[in-house]
């Protein structure tokens, strides 16, 4: 057990935990002040509920197996971990991934979902969608991974997965009143920018930590995470400048996040220059993708689909072109990676032929279909039972007061209020 690796993966775990509050602020700043606490709560709920589920049963089902489809219960209830090895570190590191994945969906359902429905949706979705998908894509013997598809830090299993699930939920949930005719500008852009800063900061742990060691691949992943975010932020700015005449702060923030999403699956398999290319491509595509919802009329409030689904797909597919594990010192095709089972082939642009691209398309296709269908059914079931949607009256008054009995801001500088106990 190497102290440097333990220190690295632990601190990366703390960074990823910090990302969920960061996401909460990124989203929370974009909604109106009457709904900001509800948005923060949807995120914080994920980080209190999912990690418990993860340790109790999730990790064991999502990673501890020998078949291609699902794990077993051998590591349930935190049993059977050897604290002189890396496994408990990996288990808790991945708990933070499990927590943030459903939180991504919160951005799509903003302003109108009953909190009680969200509270139940999150743990159920984690079990029936996140756990199996994670096993297929990430677990040593997962069938998609075993076939050779690559996902370094969760482009397919996290961003594509959460993004398509978001689409399924909003289709069941319906549009906010007034949308798309009316829109609601962000109540606090500084809060959005704070979230962006925290996300970028934490994403280094998310991506470079996924190497599960402080080695050369982690360094490459770190560099790529930096460059792709910068490149996508720049690309989004340039599109805005040309198209809208202005460079906006929400634009650069969105671009940075799009770049981070896109490089997530690729960061450990591509060179620095490829990461810049991936960032530029993702920035441009996502900048247009966020407007698709107006054409098709699904109310993806904060663009989870336009940024996470599209960005994740872009990055995951581009692996098929840019992957160059040879340049990164992986013995190509041989068993590599933390568990020695990863088969990393070259991409189309680097002499690998179309095989890897095909696997990337297959893996993402499978996740798109599975996640959409199961999530849609789950949402329908919840809607039919407790109901997904808040009343129109609650939507008008705001979810903070109606769902949580709180208001985010009390400006009156020294107005005090009678306590009624």
């Amino acid at each position, binding site marked *: 057990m190497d102290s440097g690796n333990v220190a690295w993966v632990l601190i990366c775990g703390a960074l990823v935990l910090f990302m969920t509050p960061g996401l909460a602020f990124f989203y929370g700043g974009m909604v109106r002040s009457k709904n900001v606490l509800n948005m923060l709560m949807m995120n914080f709920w994920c980080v209190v509920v999912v990690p418990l589920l993860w340790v109790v049963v999730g990790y064991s089902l999502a990673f501890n197996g020998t078949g291609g489809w699902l794990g077993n219960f051998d590591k349930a209830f935190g049993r059977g971990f050897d604290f002189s090895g890396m496994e408990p570190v990996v288990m808790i590191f991945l708990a933070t991934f499990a927590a943030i994945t459903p939180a991504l969906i919160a951005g799509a359902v903003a302003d109108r979902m009953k909190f009680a429905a969200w509270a139940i949706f999150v743990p159920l979705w984690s079990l029936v969608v996140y756990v199996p998908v994670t096993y297929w894509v990430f677990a040593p013997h997962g069938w998609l991974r075993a076939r050779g598809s690559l996902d370094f830090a969760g482009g397919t299993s996290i961003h594509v997965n959460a993004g398509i699930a978001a689409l399924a939920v909003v289709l069941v949930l319906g549009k906010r009143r007034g949308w798309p005719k009316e829109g609601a500008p962000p109540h606090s852009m500084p809060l959005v920018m704070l979230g962006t800063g925290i996300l970028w900061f934490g994403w280094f742990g998310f991506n470079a930590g996924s190497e599960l060691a402080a080695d050369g691949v982690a360094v490459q992943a770190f560099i790529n995470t930096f460059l792709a975010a910068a490149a996508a932020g720049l690309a989004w700015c340039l599109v805005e400048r040309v198209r809208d005449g202005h460079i906006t702060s929400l634009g650069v923030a969105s671009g940075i996040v799009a770049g981070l999403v896109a490089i997530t699956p690729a960061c450990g398999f591509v060179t620095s220059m490829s990461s810049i290319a991936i960032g530029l491509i993702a920035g441009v595509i996502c900048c247009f993708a966020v407007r698709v919802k107006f054409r098709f009329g699904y109310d993806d409030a904060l663009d989870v689909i336009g940024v996470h689904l599209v960005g994740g797909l872009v990055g995951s597919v581009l692996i098929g072109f840019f992957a160059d594990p040879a340049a990164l010192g992986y013995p190509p095709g041989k068993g590599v990676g933390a568990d020695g089972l990863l088969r990393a082939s070259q991409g189309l642009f680097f002499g690998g032929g179309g095989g890897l691209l095909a696997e990337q398309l297959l893996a993402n296709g499978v996740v798109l279909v599975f996640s959409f269908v199961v999530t849609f059914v789950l949402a329908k079931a919840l809607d039919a039972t407790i109901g997904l949607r808040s009343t129109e009256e609650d939507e008008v*008054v705001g979810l903070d007061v109606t769902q949580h009995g709180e*208001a985010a801001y009390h400006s009156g500088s020294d107005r005090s*209020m009678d*306590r009624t106990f």
Partner: protein
Amino acid sequence: MKLITAIIKPFKVDDVKTALKGIGVVGLTLTEVQGFGRQGGHTETFRGSEYQIDFVPKVKIEAVVRPEDVDRIVEALVDAARTDKIGDGKVWVTDVDMVIRIRTGERGSDAL
């Protein structure tokens, strides 16, 4: 000149503005206010302590208009602001001695 003051629900601002614009009101002033009335408020809970919040967010709209336009404008405003739910608000009209446009010093209806 007359001053029309209306207290309305915040989400009705756009409708009211559009309606007034439609009948030739070229200017008005808006203030975020808080209202106390029949509608009642809500309770908030902080660490188990409850607070009764009697005031609900409202928007106040003020427009100085020509006396002869008052009835038309009030009617249009009331129609646009009505939701038939409690808390829709009030409109009242007061008399204005004179009005001046700061930029030009014009007075009376020329100032509007």
